[in-house]
């Protein structure tokens, strides 16, 4: 992995004539975990796609990319709410998908190591249909880790999971992605309070920052600071921040 760059998104995004987000000026620190919180329809996912370079049909009047001035292509991985596992590939083959798609030799030992790290030893030969929702997201995380990109974009990857599974995935992801530049879109204030080094709220009114709780992520879900921050963020979202 190369040194993680910071990220920036500046300007206004439109689809046709409709404004999706902005004007704004978002910066995410290099090697840090930034949470982007906001109501549905505020343009959070579009913002991620502008960075990923997969925002078909969106015009960004402005600029998005890496703060070090080099292209982001090839340095960024995306993990979304839908796990996007290929149902005809085994768990191991899904983790190796990127290498397969680039025509590289498959590093099976490496993939097995990563699967063990996300707690899926012994699942390598299974097909996604035989896994639970939480296990499938673990495979998606393993696939993301296998790509070993310095920038990781998370688009509500844990929002479809039950509370306990979600908390476990948050712990796992926080550990596994430490040191990378993470921009994490979520609509869950508790998640932002647990994981964000920085917490930003995106709404129709624009972008503004809320102080993150002290302590390194993943923070305990029942820590007083985390609970207070969760409450504060919820209050802000209620007020249409």
């Amino acid at each position: 992995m190369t040194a993680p760059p910071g990220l920036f998104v500046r300007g206004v995004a439109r689809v046709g004539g409709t404004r999706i987000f902005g004007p704004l000026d978002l910066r995410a620190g290099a090697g840090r975990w930034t949470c982007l919180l906001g109501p549905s329809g505020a343009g959070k996912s579009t913002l991620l796609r502008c960075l990923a370079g997969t925002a078909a049909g969106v015009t960004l009047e402005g600029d998005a990319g890496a703060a070090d001035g080099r292209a982001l292509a090839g340095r960024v991985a995306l993990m979304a709410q839908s796990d996007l596992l290929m149902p005809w590939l085994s768990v191991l083959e899904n983790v190796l998908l990127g290498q397969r798609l680039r025509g590289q030799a498959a590093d099976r030992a490496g993939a097995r190591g990563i699967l063990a790290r996300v707690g899926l030893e012994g699942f390598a030969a299974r097909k996604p249909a035989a896994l639970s929702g939480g296990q499938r997201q673990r495979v998606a995380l393993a696939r993301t880790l296998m790509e070993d990109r310095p920038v990781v974009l998370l688009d509500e990857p844990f929002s479809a999971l039950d509370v306990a599974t979600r908390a476990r995935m948050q712990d796992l992801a926080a550990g596994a992605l430490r040191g990378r530049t993470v921009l994490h879109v979520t609509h869950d204030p508790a998640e932002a309070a647990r994981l964000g080094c920085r917490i930003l709220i995106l709404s129709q009114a624009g972008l503004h920052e809320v102080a993150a709780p002290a302590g390194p992520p993943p923070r305990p879900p029942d820590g007083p600071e985390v609970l207070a921050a969760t409450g504060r963020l919820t209050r802000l979202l209620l007020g249409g921040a």
Partner: protein
Amino acid sequence: MTVLRMLVPVLLGLALWQAVILLWEVPPFILPGPVRVAGTLWDARMLIAQNARVTIVEVMAGIVLGAALGWVSAVLLALSPAARIALRPMLVFSQALPVFALAPILTLWLGYGLASKIAMALLVIYFPITSAFHDALMRTPPESLALARMMGASRWREMWHIRIPAALPGFLTGLKLAAVYAPIGAIIGEWVGASKGLGYLMLLANGRAKTDLMFAALLVLALFTLALHRVVDRGADAILRRREA
């Protein structure tokens, strides 16, 4: 239970058929009864088997070649917008031509042998397979494609590892249709000009007022088509089930 459920309507149909013959005293050259057809089926079994073998070869070859050609065409169309612009209208135009009208020309070009019948079967199934597979290839979930792009996939690798496997159900749908249509193509080919095959036998029997032989051949053809449809149907479902389990 399932055997019984299938057997009851068959027996009912046969009984009705035989009753019509007995009640109205229909002459056998107009409509032979099921008993008479069964007798002919047994007596002429060698003749029917010989001709059935020819038709089966034509149908199977037509399906294999049509499926292969349809597969390649659909992938090329999906890969290249230029190919879509150039070839799609031709594809639709080819479908607007009645295959019946093409049969004499194909016989003229390819002769009275197997080739013209295989070409007919191929022509009949080429469009359904190409169309079903191509539609499926164009419907790959955009999120999967975005993932592939971010992973640095080339267009061809993305096609091979994501779009083609994701479109397999569409291809198999086309193949299921082909199993039903291909025998029609082969029979049309045989009607227009042949010296072997079930279609040829039916035409021959009809011309000589051997209506019972015609019915016997028709019965064998129908049973073959049903069996083919079932095998392809079951096979396709098994493939899809197995690859995701």
